[in-house]
């Protein structure tokens, strides 16, 4: 291994804005988001795809950004936790996590928010079991998941009510 100073330009759309950044060929996307773009809402708990704290949406698909090379984001559209609230209005999953006390230390929360949003986009009416399996890739050591699951199901109910004309 040698330290390459040759960085490549990567053109992306992040949270709806065009962003260009430089990435080393071996740099993972989680590091690029945090170090090149100062989007530190994406957390790194393991760097091996086991904890889910770095969850982002890559072309609306839920991924661990520690398992994606930064250069793979070329031409792609990304959504990070910083882009989940719109115009300062919290997404229902964010609001319900707050109302249910669905976070303690909060370091897994960005990943949970992104993953739960992806769940609710894909399945507006998940069962408790579906929510638990969808979020099984997001480790939380503080809450025992109880209040997270309640928040996700409540957010789903709220969003379904909002959709009813």
């Amino acid at each position, binding site marked *: 291994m040698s330290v390459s100073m040759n960085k490549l330009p990567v053109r992306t759309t992040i949270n709806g804005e065009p962003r260009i950044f430089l990435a080393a060929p071996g740099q993972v996307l989680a590091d690029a988001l945090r170090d090149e773009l100062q989007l*530190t809402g994406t957390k790194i708990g393991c760097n091996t795809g086991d*904890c889910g704290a770095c969850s982002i949406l890559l072309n609306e698909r839920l991924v661990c950004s520690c398992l994606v090379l930064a250069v793979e984001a070329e031409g792609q559209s990304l959504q990070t936790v910083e882009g989940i609230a719109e115009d300062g209005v919290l997404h229902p999953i964010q609001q319900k996590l707050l109302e249910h006390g669905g976070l303690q230390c*909060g370091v*897994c929360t960005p990943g949970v928010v992104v993953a739960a949003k992806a769940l609710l986009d894909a399945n507006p009416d998940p069962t408790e079991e579906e929510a638990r399996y969808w979020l099984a890739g997001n480790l939380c*050591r503080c809450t*025992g998941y109880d209040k997270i699951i309640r928040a996700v199901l409540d957010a789903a109910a709220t969003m379904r009510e909002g959709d009813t004309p």
Partner: protein
Amino acid sequence: MTVQQEFRVVGSRPVRPDGVDKVTGRALYGADFNMQDQIYGHILRSPHAHARIKNIDCSRARAMEGVLAVMTGEDLQEPGSRVLGSGEGAIALRDLTPMVMAQGKVLFHSQPVAAVAATSPELAALAAEAIEVTFDVLPVVTELHAALAEGAPILHEDRFPDGQPKEPTNLATHISAQVGEPDAAFAEADVIVERTYSVPMCHQGYIEPHACVARVDGTGQVDLWCSTQGHFTVRGYTAALTGLDEGNIRVTPSEIGGGFGGKTTVYLEPIAVILAGKSGRPVKMVMDRGDVFRATGPAPGAETRVKLGATRDGRLVAADVECLMDSGAYNGNPAGFPAFLATACYKLSHARSVGRSVYTNKPKIHAYRAPSMPQVTLAFELVVNELAAELNMDPIDFRLLNAVEEGDSNMLAARYKRIGLRECLEAARTHAHYRSPVAENGGRGVAMGYWINAGLQSSATLNVSADGHVAVLTGSPDIGGSRASMALMAAEVLGIPLDHIHPQVVATDAIGHCDVTGGSRTTLATGQAVIQAAEQLVAEMCRRAAGEWDVGVEAVTWSEGAAHSDQGCLTFEALAARAGSMGGPLTVSSSLTASSAAPAFAVHICDATVDKETGRTTITRYTAIQDAGKAIHPDYVEGQMQGGVVQGIGWALNEEYLYDDQGALQNPGFLDYRIPVASDLPLIDTVIIEVPNPLHPFGVRGVGEVPIVPPMPAVAEAVFHSAGVRVARLPLNPPRMVAALTGDDDLV
């Protein structure tokens, strides 16, 4: 002390003040902060679990372009015999310093040996690899009994049990306690049960790895940003290890991504400070997840033998407890609490308890939520359940007959004031869960637990702005919602709207000393400092109003956020607005050593089903009942209970450190060290019992720790009733359960 019973806002469930930052990603944790012109530190770690360091040659690393500082263990202060006071007890430097960097000998795999700082993380890693270390490799011992066996490799040739210089052994500590005459009392017993259970070493498993940034400025002032449960402890430890004056070090705590006891010490911080001093540049360090598992302090594995005797009418008459605990490479003193507190839930006039800890080639153990209590409680509660079964008694009825209450003592000779154990047991007995039928093929387990809880030192400052808002400053890192409880307590006393209160956790130079966020002490002790400061602020407001009205201060009362007398009413906002002309800025501080710590008790009910073919255990229902004294913010009390339960379930069913014969950890990642995930679990039902702590103005007890104490025995008892076999070694993972069910004793 008069304990307040009626509350205006305490006991409500507002959104926490730091919540929006944490759901939007704005909150800054240890690795989220950078300093101007920073460089990056990297640690070279030992590839051996036991070896003498013959030589360290840093010349190649030093010569690399972009490498700005290199250090070894010699750059830390000589530990000598110095002992540091800390939040939850004292620690000798000889046990602390080598966990940061080896002092001539490595005693566990991945122990730090040297470190470099360079202009990029990649370069720093390459430079660390370029350091050449010559080791004299020694035999390794990782198992408790092997470490005590004759001829075992000796980790510390200069340490002797009980301080008596004889032949060195790996026995780290040996303590015992006794009340009454247990041997004679056992003769009175109609039924005696004796069992031995063992629990593996496990890790706290906080999701955020350790991280820090350090800067040393031109005048020698150190600025240190880090993720910690106690930045005053970090300051003291860092000063001791680097030789710098404590007063020259300012530590600013980041948001903290979990700790559970594991972040009440230093690992990276003294290294970053030394590298920053040598290089003249800020140094950032972030620990790799594998190194978190391999080289920070896990919870000790333990083997506990419990012998209990009872009379036919269900009275416990004697207890004999012997606990052998893994200390890891240095003295983490894990055996003290179990020896003294094993019997703490029960009226027992005759009991003996022995605790021993053993050095092994593993990282020194460290605090994990009610340190050492779950390991010993596993054996104790399972034996209680067996006794109750032998006596044909319901396990809760049996416990009610023997449970401690006000006036009873534990083996630390601490006499309980008003406690809520009986209330917890009564609530368990009448709970819908306990009254429901057990599922076919399933089993149900009950267990209870105790934790001592800590008081210790805390400080709070309240600063009032001209618009009547109040900044509530403390030095207690908010690990699970304590800003919310501080705001609620301040609002309760002041009588002003909750959203006018702004709780902050501030740096070591901005607040009086605060001990660690740990020991279930933050809402209890720091909260008490907040309450006292708020009461001082109310008193000052009343004094100013009395002056304004030209009446005696005794003629002024405070209610609804305003001073009242027969002259009229002056609101908090009005007094704040006119502070400049009424005596100057409004700021009050309170510091205390809390003596209000109160014992916490919990009773848990677990339903589980074991798949007899695969050996997999499913937790189907779980209820945790706990005396919180007073729940300031019930969401976060429930959250502590649920989180502790699930950590205990993980320890019971899956979590385990696995070492190879050379002392290398085989599962240093979340894939192979599997903590519970959402799909493993049911909802965790909670019942908060509120028997006010008579020593606290609001009746608060600590809540964070006791929830991890009952789960292992509750789960193991449920597993026994479902599977029909008792397994003496945890975790009760599928291979072990299959082996138990098929009679393969080698694996059990």
